[in-house]
């Protein structure tokens, strides 16, 4: 029986070691700062432009702003969950997945930031014209559980097609946008469901054909594509900072609507600074023409994204509840059932 005692002790030691590793690393959440994550995509123009033109800094005053650029919604969720970010911009699908997975309302929607801005692009000599033609094809979408991935997989399921990992015939590649560009150029994939500016780059630089825009597949032709969300703990602790950020978010939305040319050049400069790649002005101009910058989160599209994600098994298997996804900025209270501007 000695061995049992030893193994018990060993398990306990390991557990303690693991516990101490996990709890080390003091959170930075108490400093006078706000940490924000977003992507280098055109539909993230609100944080990009608002940070570059100083709107957020002006509104926030002495509160420091720390930013981080990531590639995907799931990374934003990871950053919020691990308390390495306070606010984030991401699509509705990863938000809903993160919200449901957190089980304790850890994140909330503060505002919208963009609507539309994703397209289904096929190769230039492709014969694909209807959904049925996708049988046996190779299609890319960024990251499992991201907004385009949910839309693509739902679209396939709607047309009775299954991806290969579930025994179907369609190969779905979940890779980052720059890699999608590379394998599209090599001809390794037949189609891609991608956000801007990747969609426009595939069309204008690689001769791809835009088969349809995602909004065409939506009931009233519009859907939310970027939301501003916050970590609930941060929202409760710093309602003043959050209110300022949301105000700056709205101001930036208006500024972008009034200054489309400046917005495009700010985005091109930012993209150059971040990726080292200089994007063509025409591409950015076209990409912006495919999205709407808006602070409205288009609430019914969020519910539909949730239904679709649930249908794909992304929200677990025992139901889900979206009753408290909104943060009420005016009252500084968390737990609103709907969004108030």
């Amino acid at each position: 029986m000695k061995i049992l005692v030893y193994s018990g002790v060993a398990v306990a030691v390991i557990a303690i070691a693991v516990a101490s590793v996990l709890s080390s690393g003091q959170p930075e959440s108490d400093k006078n700062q706000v940490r924000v994550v977003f992507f280098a995509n055109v539909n993230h123009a609100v944080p990009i432009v608002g940070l570059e033109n100083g709107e957020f800094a002006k509104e926030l005053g002495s509160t420091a702003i720390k930013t981080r650029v990531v590639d995907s919604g799931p990374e934003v969720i990871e950053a919020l969950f691990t308390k390495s970010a306070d606010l984030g911009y991401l699509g509705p699908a990863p938000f809903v997945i993160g919200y449901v997975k957190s089980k304790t309302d850890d994140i909330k929607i503060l505002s919208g930031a963009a609507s539309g801005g994703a397209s289904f692009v096929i190769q230039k000599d492709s014969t694909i014209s209807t959904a049925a033609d996708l049988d046996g094809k190779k299609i890319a979408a960024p990251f499992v559980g991201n907004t385009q991935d949910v839309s693509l997989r739902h679209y396939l399921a709607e047309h009775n097609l299954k991806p290969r990992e579930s025994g179907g015939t369609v190969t779905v590649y979940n890779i980052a946008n720059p890699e999608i560009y590379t394998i599209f150029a090599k001809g390794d994939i037949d189609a891609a469901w991608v956000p801007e500016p990747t969609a426009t780059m595939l069309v204008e630089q690689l001769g791809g054909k835009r088969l349809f825009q995602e909004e065409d597949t939506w009931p009233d032709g519009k859907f939310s594509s970027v939301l501003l969300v916050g970590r609930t703990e941060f929202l409760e602790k710093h309602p003043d900072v959050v209110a300022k950020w949301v105000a700056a978010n709205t101001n930036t939305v208006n500024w972008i609507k009034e200054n489309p040319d400046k917005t495009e050049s700010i985005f091109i400069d930012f993209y150059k600074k971040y990726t080292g790649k200089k994007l063509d002005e025409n591409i950015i101009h076209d990409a912006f023409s495919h999205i709407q910058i808006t602070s409205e989160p288009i609430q019914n599209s969020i519910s539909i994204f949730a239904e679709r994600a649930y249908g794909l098994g992304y929200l677990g298997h025992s139901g889900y509840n979206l009753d408290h996804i909104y943060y009420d900025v005016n009252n500084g209270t968390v737990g609103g059932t709907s969004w108030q501007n």
Partner: protein
Amino acid sequence: MKPSVLAKKIAFFVGIVLVWQALDSANVWPDKIFPSPLEVGESLWYGASNGTLFYGIGTSLWRLAIGLSIAIAGGITLGVFMARVETVNQTIGSIVLGLQSIPSVAWSPLAIVWFGLTDAGVIFVTVAGAIFSVTINTYTGVKNINPDYIAAAQNMGAKGGQLITKVLVPAAFPYMISGFKQGWAFAWRGVIGAELLFSFLGLGFLLNVGRQLSDVSQVIAMMLVIMIIGIVIDGLIFKRLEDKVMSRWGLR
């Protein structure tokens, strides 16, 4: 297995699950980063009930089988030549140890560029991870053959292919078996590592899906499956093979 050994093993595993459940119930960490054994079990159950788990296992094992076969065939060839042809040993032999020290996933970026996101790319990573341990063990095995055996065979007229298949390989087999065993472990890591990076079907992909859906229970479930497959393949195939060879060659 003796009943007492079995009892200890069962007690150990039950203990792990109990401690795990207790840690979960103590709510030290939120559920979203530390799921309970029950949730992990549920993840496995749903994966099994909609078939994705079996497709994942099938894909990974298929890639493993192809990759390992290529690695074994290539490793034996390379090992025999290194041991028998001095020039090969002086040239290729000098970098084999270095290549062996490259972790298989480090080949992934190259594989993606060369093969694209295909099965061939994953298999390439698998082969690259496993081939050199087979090579080194085969080399050692052939080098350790009593020279009298080889001389005797040559006196009786064996040469070329016959010498290799009838003398060298059988004589070096006990070493080669350890090479296969090591090679398989490297190959399995290579498959999973490549699938994680390629994110293209298989168990590594399902693990990645768990991460991207913030579904830690799926991540742990897939890690368990990877481990169990490791134990099963090692116990059912390689350990038995090794035992058989060892007793047949009179080494135990």
